[in-house]
């Protein structure tokens, strides 16, 4: 019989009865005995080295601590993007739709109607506000029946096929200094369903030491369905090889369009849902005020403007009202508008006047 392997011998140190045949071999084999001895020495020596005083734990206290720990992210099923100043314009363009949807969900006025905005309005928002939105997860469950799946593709045709036939926009007047090297990105339609849970809401409120206002009948189990996209975009600039959607960094220009998001719901009126959700402790008074200030959310898409990072003003683009972000320093600017049920965004490390010019000439 061949000699025992080191692995087998090691196991025999812990469990001498592991196999009768092996034990019989060891008994009659001087070589294996010698190896066994040295393996056993190492094992014992390491056991001594790694010995530590036992940790005495209070499981009940530890459990209470874990249950009260703030859960940072991603409670919504996706991680909200962190705004880095240098990638601000692009992040705005990519993130605006998702975040706007979350806000739209909150402000949706007619739950029985399919909501589709036809204009945009700026809403000042802080990063903390954006993160507060992730607390929606404390009030119910968010499931993606179709996950957002942004893909980097190699051609306009491929982008269109990923995006269900939506053609990428064509930039006709690229500003000087912007690379004509284009990377296409596309996302098929994504669908999220938020289901309100009164149990979860009560638990979340209790953790803040508060009680929820009395809830309307039908609130428990009410569903809000939000669709995003499909969307297509072009990124102008020299990206590193093997770029994926997540490591596109600091492009010079991003141009994108997306089917305007829609929201539908069941069981409750909007006012009721809005009241309950706005009552959550994490949402700042500013955001509450901003949400309430939106005149007619069934026709207006709120575009979140990160307060510390950008200024905004209303502009006319392609004959409709849009919002311009940033300034003319060339550090970063962007324009967002909605036309014929499609949300468009142009953003990059360019002057605001260039961004508006590109927007007006987009085909």
């Amino acid at each position: 019989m061949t000699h025992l392997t080191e692995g087998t011998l090691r196991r025999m140190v812990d469990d001498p009865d592991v196999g009768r045949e092996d034990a019989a071999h060891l008994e009659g084999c001087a070589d294996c005995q010698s190896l066994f001895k040295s393996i056993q020495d190492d094992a014992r020596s390491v056991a001594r080295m790694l010995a530590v005083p036992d940790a005495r734990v209070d499981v009940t206290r530890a459990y209470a601590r874990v249950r009260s720990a703030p859960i940072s992210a991603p409670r919504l099923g996706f991680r909200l993007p962190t705004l880095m100043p240098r990638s601000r314009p692009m992040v705005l363009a990519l993130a605006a739709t998702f975040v706007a949807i979350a806000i739209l969900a909150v402000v949706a006025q007619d739950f029985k109607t399919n909501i589709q905005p036809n204009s945009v309005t700026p809403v000042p928002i802080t990063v903390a506000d954006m993160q507060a939105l992730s607390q929606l997860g404390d009030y119910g469950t968010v499931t993606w029946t179709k996950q957002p799946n942004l893909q980097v593709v190699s051609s306009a045709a491929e982008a269109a096929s990923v995006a269900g036939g939506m053609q990428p926009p064509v930039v006709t007047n690229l500003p000087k200094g912007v690379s004509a090297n284009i990377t296409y990105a596309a996302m098929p339609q994504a669908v999220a369903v938020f289901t309100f849970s009164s149990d979860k809401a009560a638990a979340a409120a209790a953790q803040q030491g508060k009680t929820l206002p009395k809830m309307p009948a039908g609130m428990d189990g009410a569903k809000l369905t939000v669709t995003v996209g499909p969307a297509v975009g072009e990124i102008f600039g020299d990206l590193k090889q093997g770029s994926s959607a997540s490591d596109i960094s600091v492009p010079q220009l991003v141009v994108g369009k997306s089917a305007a998001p829609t929201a539908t719901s069941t069981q409750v009126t909007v006012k009721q849902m809005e009241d309950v959700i706005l009552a959550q402790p994490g949402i700042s008074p500013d955001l509450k005020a901003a949400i309430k200030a939106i005149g007619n959310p069934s026709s207006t898409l709120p575009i979140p403007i990160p307060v510390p990072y950008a200024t905004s003003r209303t502009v006319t683009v392609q004959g409709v009202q849009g919002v311009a972000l940033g300034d003319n320093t060339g550090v970063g600017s962007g324009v967002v508008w909605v036309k014929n049920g499609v949300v468009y965004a142009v953003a990059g490390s360019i002057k605001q006047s260039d961004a508006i010019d590109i927007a007006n000439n987009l085909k």
Partner: protein
Amino acid sequence: MNLGARRVSNVKADDEAFEALFRSEYGRVVGIANRVLADSHEAEDVAQDVFIDFHRLHSASADYAPAWLHRAAAHASLNRLRGSRRRHRREVAQAAEEGERTMDPQKQLEVDEDRRRVREALARLAPKPAAVLVLRASGLSYAEVAGALGVGIGQVGTMLRRAEAALRKEVTRDTSD
């Protein structure tokens, strides 16, 4: 409405499953982290982070829950061990903990010194061998170690043997330097 009621009961069931999982595994998860860090307070921090991460992303009734927790505890604590900024704090805490015991001061110094050297050697091992040592030393069975590391149970003996030889070598190398 039945759907809504079922959803609520699902939430409750999930919370109950998480609490049961926590109660059955918390001690072991702390044990694994303590084995690495030799500091029970820091080990509890790691263990709680591990449970929070788990709860955020996984269902407590998943079959793989204990294996996931064991693996995460080993990796999270080894990562912490490798972070040199923590090292000093840990030594201080450890010295204080030992200081509460009645031990001959000379002997205590030796114990501290040995423990420090072993942890430094452990931090230098590759992640997998380090994890094998720590999990087995924390009392996990061969099957549990195999589950945590996603390897066949037949491989555990060999991995353990190699890791033990490597750790001894690292510690000796450190001493002879």
